[in-house]
């Protein structure tokens, strides 16, 4: 790299560009790396956010499996519960849970952008929409958890 002081003003700094034609310079296009989202914090977060969809798929499949186990009778249900309690499975599911919470947070934070609510003529401030979503999350969670615990109890 040359500092400004050593920079020769008039001599071309390198050999002429073979692809350049007078009056028609060659515009330069940066190539995009395949893993363009690696090494940029925000883009990596974006890809992680998108990949939480895999956790949603997994959760759906797990729920289905659990339903199958319930349908097959008490033994298979017990076996399934036993599998769930195995340490590595539990560890995996704790990780899944964290991922799902990440999904929820990113989803709810973005939702007010798409949703424009109005009361009369005035637009509900996005902040209020956001708070509303979080309240809904708390309510639904309480309902789901409460119901399940009630069934258990």
């Amino acid at each position: 790299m040359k500092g400004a002081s050593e920079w020769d003003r008039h001599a071309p700094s390198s050999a002429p560009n073979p692809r350049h034609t007078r009056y028609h310079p060659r515009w330069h296009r940066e190539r995009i790396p395949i893993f363009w989202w690696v090494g940029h914090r925000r883009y990596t977060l974006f890809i992680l956010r998108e990949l939480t969809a895999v956790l949603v798929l997994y959760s759906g499949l797990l729920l289905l499996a659990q339903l199958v186990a319930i349908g097959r009778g008490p033994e298979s249900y017990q076996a399934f519960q036993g599998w769930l309690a195995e340490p590595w499975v539990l560890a995996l599911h704790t990780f899944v849970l964290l991922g799902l919470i990440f999904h929820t947070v990113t989803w709810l934070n973005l939702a007010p952008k798409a949703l424009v609510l109005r009361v009369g003529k005035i637009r509900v401030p996005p902040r209020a929409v956001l708070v509303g979503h979080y309240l809904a999350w708390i309510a639904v969670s309480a309902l789901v958890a409460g119901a399940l615990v009630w069934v258990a109890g």
Partner: protein
Amino acid sequence: MEPVTLKVLRYRPEEEVEPTYQEYEVPCQDNWMVLDALNHVKERLDGTLSYRWACRMGVCGSCGMTVNGTPVLTCATYVEDVLPGPVVVEPLRGFPVIRDLVGDITDFMEKLGRVKPWLIRDEKKSPDEGEYLQTPEEVADYKQYSMCINCMLCYAACPIYELEPDFIGPAAIALAQRYNLDSRDQGEEERMDVLSQHDGVWACTFIGECSVVCPKNVDPAGAIQRYKVSATVDWVRSVLMPGRKP
């Protein structure tokens, strides 16, 4: 202030095939913007450095560049906020580079026209009949989207535009929404043809960076998602009432 090293991406198409970095020592003063530092280079050190600027007050939209990896308006970015050096200055991503820090924005200009960014009316009033009435609340509905200065930082920040150059892009969609939401406008149907394509709103996967970098709080990401909602509502209506015009 200590002298600051600027590491500038140079590309001189007559001489070189690939861009290279060049470093300059700049004796920056307090309250200098990155643009002031570049001007110092151009005026005192090296007249060959090329870049665009005009208003140096953040409204003409011409001085966007990538500084330390982030797209910014260089006339509104303090040098002290991007220290410690070397401060890396590159052209905006996603645009072909003509020379040094100058990108070719022809593609953007063409897209801007495609969303029909003008007031479309079924029936036009003559000026003698006075203004179209519009309450302050109605102005507020689209005001935010009318603040775009076409600086294209949002395009530079959006990986989708880089990956899929046909994507019409954040600012153009925000501008379409600016007119769609204007109570005086009746052109929503006409703009739908462009926006409801894959290269319209649907290519956007809501990365959201466009709104993060926008210097004027236009929130193009919001505009796009809002449009997705309206397009969906429109689609549901057309399914329920097939007789309606497309």
